[in-house]
């Protein structure tokens, strides 16, 4: 692992939502760095700012102030086209509610990011089949999301996130809509991708099953970083 290199750097990020006259502070000065090929879980109770953090790291939402660097690029300075490119090639997203395109088959869902990337149809067909086999859905290529179980849909979403070989996969509560066993399978799949493909994985979660496999855990509370722990520390503290 090339641990010297940071893939995500967040410096003093603030995010406020305006609800009429009331201003709700969601992030209140968050800073941390994530190494390449790391598996990081962002944990905290609901309302702590996890999802907001997920959105701003992924360039899905703007920040009120502060800086976010993805691969040494300040995303605040990107125009709409460059941001779309970033979302398309650099980052893969996985959501709690899967967010698949219901009109399309599993294979077409995985192909869509490649369509936006302008890759030729033959290559898309081949690549989408490969990734779906990798996530264990080689026999479900032609099924639409409605014909798949929750766990299978989340696997399609993971395959879609991997379509353009992103440097980072961001997962927002990927197991929250799944039962215990399916959730574990998804976590193991994410870990496998992290180890075998070297994809940096960042999950926002309150699923404690994630602790066992994360390299580091960033605990968030009230829009601030509460503490950052290595996995070994967490296990030691859990035992003692």
């Amino acid at each position, binding site marked *: 692992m090339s641990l010297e290199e940071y893939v995500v750097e967040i410096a003093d990020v603030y995010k406020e939502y305006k609800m009429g006259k009331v201003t709700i502070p969601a992030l209140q000065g968050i800073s941390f760095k994530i190494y390449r090929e790391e598996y990081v879980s962002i944990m905290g109770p609901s309302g702590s700012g996890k999802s907001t953090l997920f*959105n701003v790291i*992924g360039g*899905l*939402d*703007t920040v009120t102030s502060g800086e976010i660097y993805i691969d040494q*690029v*300040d995303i605040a*300075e*990107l125009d*709409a*086209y*460059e941001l*779309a*490119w970033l*979302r*398309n*090639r650099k980052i893969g*997203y996985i*959501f709690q509610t899967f*967010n*698949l*395109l*219901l*009109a*399309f088959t599993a294979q*077409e869902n995985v192909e*869509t*990011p490649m*369509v*936006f*990337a*302008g890759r030729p149809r033959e290559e898309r067909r081949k690549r989408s089949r490969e990734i779906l086999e990798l996530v264990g859905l080689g026999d479900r290529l032609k099924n*639409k999301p409605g014909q798949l179980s929750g766990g299978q849909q989340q696997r399609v979403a993971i395959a*879609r996130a991997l*379509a*353009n070989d992103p440097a980072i996969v961001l997962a927002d509560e990927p197991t929250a809509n799944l039962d215990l066993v399916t959730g574990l399978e998804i976590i193991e799949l994410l870990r496998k991708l992290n180890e075998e493909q070297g994809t940096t994985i960042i999950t926002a979660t309150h699923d404690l099953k994630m602790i066992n496999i994360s390299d580091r855990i960033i605990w968030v509370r009230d829009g601030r970083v509460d503490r950052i722990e290595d996995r070994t520390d967490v296990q030691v503290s859990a035992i003692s």
Partner: protein
Amino acid sequence: MSLDLPDPHFSLGEVIYLSFANIRRRFLRSVITALGIILGITFMAALLTNSLILGLMQAETGVEAYQFWLVGISLVVCFGGITNSMLMAVNERVKEIGVYKCIGGLDSHIIRLFIVEALFLGALGGTIGAIIGMGIGILINLNRFPIEDLTTQIASSSFTFVLMFGLCLFISLVLTALATFIPARRAANMSPAEALRYEN
């Protein structure tokens, strides 16, 4: 900051393929949307045809005075019906637009997808609506005038009827495209997070 990116590449073939996949999957919803367009255009075409025939036959039936108002109202109904159908159809898909944005779709990609879909429904609804409407417009005049006179008059000014058909189709296409473009652009301008959170 320049990342030195290649040009975006989203061919018309891909757009049409994706648009039709969406129409197929949302078939029932597409039919209902198309019906809304058909209804509006039918109403307008029927009143226009009726007005045209009354003018051609130089009839003194006492309804000519109202023709101007009737055609005006038919335009308003048509406009309302089509815009409403299309606005609803886009509005319930804001979340889908959010998904497209998350996986790297440009605003222009997304708007093109929706416009192609709308234009197809607009062309279909406009054609069917114009045919039915003109049919109704002629039918209601069948017992008002001798059929021979009616056919001679219609045949002699067939070009005007073709023009009217063209007008109906044109209005249908412009209204569907416009009523799709405006909400689709609004949704595409949202941040992806905002579009994903959107609840109808």
